[in-house]
């Protein structure tokens, strides 16, 4: 088992004729993801690298039974592309695009609630159930099938941690990059609940960073609802207030959202916080045993 995606996931790639979309569509296909369609308005009818292209998500879904979509559409048009997927009846939308205006994402949220669509991202690396389905830009080769669930607001830091997990013999059920933007789709609590309910997952790694209070809320959720062990890591302990650290969400504003507060919240919830990424596998092994 796993969460959100598996061998039955049928993926449509929105923005498949762009540079990143074209490259990663083939990468995902090569990994074994069931990439059933691509969408690029005006290019319907073509077949690129063995993937049929459609003008609209609606057509792609009717023709191929796609149930998940990944967004590589450029930022100014990405909000609309996300809405298109939701109204076409796609169940899971993974938005990779970076730099989408917040106002556009705020408009997406109620539509997703209304249509019952699930959203991951934007500004995220995607998600993977190792050996079954990779959606996004994650490097498939560092992941290994196993029993650890992982969620993270960051990209390469996630790879760093996954690499260490895999090297120390800890494979993964599903790993999700939830994205670094202030307004995003599925967040820690939603995913923690899914991992709690997934029989294959025996422990969870949560990688957070400065900004907002999502980690504090996750800590409370873990304390009240999780029976499975969780290990956390927080990036940005040395970040100064008022400066945006690359991710739109990674900013300490008015003295809140600091790493210190987040670490305290996890400690209070009984969740060990690794001082550096290399401690994570060891902490997890102690708890899973």
């Amino acid at each position, binding site marked *: 088992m796993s969460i959100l995606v598996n061998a039955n996931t049928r993926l449509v790639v929105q923005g498949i004729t762009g540079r990143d979309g074209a490259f990663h569509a083939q*990468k995902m296909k090569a990994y074994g993801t069931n990439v059933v369609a691509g969408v690029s308005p005006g290019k319907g009818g073509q077949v690129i690298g063995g993937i049929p292209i459609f003008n609209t998500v609606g057509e792609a879904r009717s023709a191929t039974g796609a149930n998940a979509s990944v967004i590589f559409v450029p*930022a*100014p048009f990405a909000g609309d592309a996300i809405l298109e997927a939701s109204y076409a009846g796609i169940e899971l939308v993974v938005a990779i695009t970076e*730099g*989408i*205006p*917040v*106002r556009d*994402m*705020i*408009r997406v*949220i*109620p539509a997703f609630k209304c249509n019952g669509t699930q959203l991951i991202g934007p500004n995220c690396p995607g998600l993977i159930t190792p050996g079954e389905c990779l959606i996004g*830009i*994650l*490097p498939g*080769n*560092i992941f290994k099938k196993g029993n650890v669930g992982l969620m*993270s*607001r*960051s*990209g*390469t*830091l*996630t*790879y*760093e941690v996954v*690499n260490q997990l895999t090297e120390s013999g800890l494979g993964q059920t599903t790993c999700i990059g939830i994205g*670094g933007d*202030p*307004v*995003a789709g599925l967040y820690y609590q939603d995913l923690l609940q899914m991992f709690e309910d997934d029989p294959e997952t025996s422990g969870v790694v949560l*990688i957070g*960073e400065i900004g*907002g*209070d*999502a980690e504090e*809320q996750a800590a409370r959720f873990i304390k009240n609802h999780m029976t499975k062990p969780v290990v956390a*890591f927080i*990036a*940005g*302990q*040395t*970040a*100064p207030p008022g*400066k*945006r*650290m*690359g*991710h*739109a*969400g*990674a900013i300490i504003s*008015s*003295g809140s959202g600091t*790493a210190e507060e987040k670490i305290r919240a996890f400690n209070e919830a009984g969740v060990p916080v690794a*001082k*550096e*990424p*290399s401690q994570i596998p060891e902490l997890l092994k102690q708890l899973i045993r």
Partner: protein
Amino acid sequence: MKIHEYQARDLFRKYGIPVPDAILCHSVEEVEAKVPDDNLLRVVKAQVHAGGRGKAGGVKLARSKAEAVENAGKILGMDIKGYTVEKVLIGDAVDIDKEYYVGLINDRNTRNVVLMVSAEGGVEIEEVAKVTPEKIIKVPIDPLVGLMDWQARELALQLFSDIRHARMAASIFQKLYKLYIDTDSSLAEINPLVLTLQDEIVAIDGKMNFDDNALYRQPGILEMREVTADEQKEIDATEKGLSYIKLDGTIGCMVNGAGLAMATMDMIKLYGGEPANFLDIGGSSNPQKVIDAMDILLSDKNVKAVMINIFGGITRCDDVARGLITALDQIKTSIPIVVRLSGTNAREGLELLKSKGLLTVGSMGEAARKAIELSKL
């Protein structure tokens, strides 16, 4: 992106939010020329991109033209939190009966725009939020229908007992929301919003920030941008596809990915060093990016050692290594550099670097320790 109070006031006025008359001056001579000699009470306010102006002495009353000139002279050139005051706004004082706070912000938790109001205006709202959060009333706004009349009125009635005042305030809330949405704002504050003894409601001070990701469709807002030298460095970096923030330490860092870059800074600190910067070079192994990044790093004279930390995912480490070698051939520097490569094709990358005599290590921790050691030589 931030703008000055006088710019926010101009936007308020354009959207029909009442503000008192004011004159913007860049020099004492300009104050001399523009302020009428009428002994009206005025307020001279520093225009800088920093809060806490009042406490820093950047806001002074003037009872006459002479006093306005004198106080402008004191404030112009003053340093407030690292910003030099280059402009003052001289506004008509109003007869304050009561002060309120009004703010709009993008809220992560409700994933909506939230309107916040409080009867505790005029003070630092962060303090109110910390000490007496119950004194701030918050309402999430449905993005599909906007701030509804009844909603604005209901909120205004919690601040004003007189329905006339509540109606005026409700209208201001709605105008501020329209301005917020139209300009892709990320923060819009009126603090204080004042009820005057003449039964008027006016915005005395305003603050607005904007979503950097939306500036491409906000040419009018972009025109108002004003940047300091440090910010200019950060903007130049952004234009080159890099994300750079200058800090005060001695270890320059170059990392791919924001989260890993933060974790790298943390690790330097954990092992007893101080990071000189945050620098995310993104996903590409383009040598030009590495060259640009090294240029920026080495332009900081505090840097005593450089730590390069790359995790190859989609990016292949041997490509990054080639980029680094090209870059370092072009930039001759005596500053020691420690390179850590891990992930896809790391072994090939490390061998390439070693053959060029570069110092390479296998883990983040080792790289941090080594860079700190070298910075102290």
